[in-house]
């Protein structure tokens, strides 16, 4: 279609599904959630204090 021909000038060696992305993105989603909650917990129990943060 016109959009394809008009917008993608770089030849691709192979077509790959962007859904490959899903695995990594979802892992990152959970990782960010866990890291955020762990940091929050450390702050609440007093293990991380404002003085420790530059």
């Amino acid at each position: 279609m016109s959009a394809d021909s008009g917008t993608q000038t770089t030849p691709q060696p192979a077509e790959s599904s962007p859904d490959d992305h899903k695995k990594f993105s979802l892992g990152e989603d959970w990782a960010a959630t866990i890291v955020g909650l762990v940091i929050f917990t450390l702050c609440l129990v007093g293990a991380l204090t404002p003085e420790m943060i530059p």
Partner: protein
Amino acid sequence: MTPPDSSPAPAAEKDTTVEVASPVPAAPAAEAPQTAAPSSTVRIGWAVGGLVMVVGLAWLVQFLVGWVPEATDGTGFGRVAKSIEYPVYAIVLGFAANALLSSLGLRDRMSAAFRTEFFIKVGLVLLGATIDFSIFVRAFGPAVVQACLLITAVFLFTWWLAGRLGIDDKLRALLATSLAVCGVSAAVAAAGAVQAKKEQLAFTATLVIVFAVPSIFLLPWLANVMGLTDAVTGAWIGGNIDTTAAVTAAGAVAGEGPLQIASIVKVTQNALLGVVAVLLTMFFAFKVGADASPGTPKKITDPAALKLLWGRFPKFVLGFLAASVVATILGQTMSPEVLEPRLDAAKDIQVWALTLAFVSIGLEFKVQSAKEAGWKPVVVFAAATVVNLVVGLALAAVLFGGFEM
């Protein structure tokens, strides 16, 4: 070593490259062990270098926020300097470092460390701790109504306009979803749902960033010029700017109140992404018919649809809500003398996480992808952004006009 693909995009393509890299057909067996090990070590080394760069720039941002107003006090720039918030320094420094690293040929090698999505999600979980859950409860209803109406209006307009310009259906779906829901994450989900090509995803993600960055500064300024309340400003920013990182940056520029409402509105939109992904998957499955893969849901009640719904649900929203609930409960049960310093620590780290994300926005941007965009999708994006701005402002004014912070 050099990847053949020259059109990567922020976050999106980087991940794809990670996933696609492993199944490359083996070269001569004798060479494989010699090239694989050092390559992986070198990659980790560059990623660590990139992380040092991101953290160093974030530290510089924190320094400039304090130093520039002091150094320019009493000069003509002094008043302006006091009003410059940390996202401005972070994004400007990110772009400057991007230009420097690109000119030295180092940007791509370090790019594994430029993780806007990860940093922003950590920051948003911590931001949840600063939001009283009662605000969330009161804002949730208007936020859902705004999200449903705005997503529908912007999606249908973008789909229609892209169709009129003859843009391929899969690219239409990516453009419409990214504009209507939440930028790059939505484009990734839509790409999976409609089986779009990798370069279509890369290109959509680039458009999202190109349009989001000016909005970070433009919307808070316009809201100030129009004299909008904190709640309306936040709802407008949260409903309009596509990518969550840019919403947070614009909210932070506008102030604490707008940031809280903007994050609630954006988190609500993020949560609706799964619904859009399921509907898109079913729509394209019906279009493709017999060629659809066996696991594709055909009805909204299919277990596969529910699985997809959960699969696409942004999990960081759960962390955001959990932090808000815990902080609100502790606010009722602990003495402020004990709780306040602890929440201050979480707030300080939240600012660091957001600063890392804003620096990464600039670092991730690729000029090459923008050049390859072509004019039609740019026209669609620009027109739909204007529709989003106007409809979003009207909805924010109606739904959040009487909202008390």
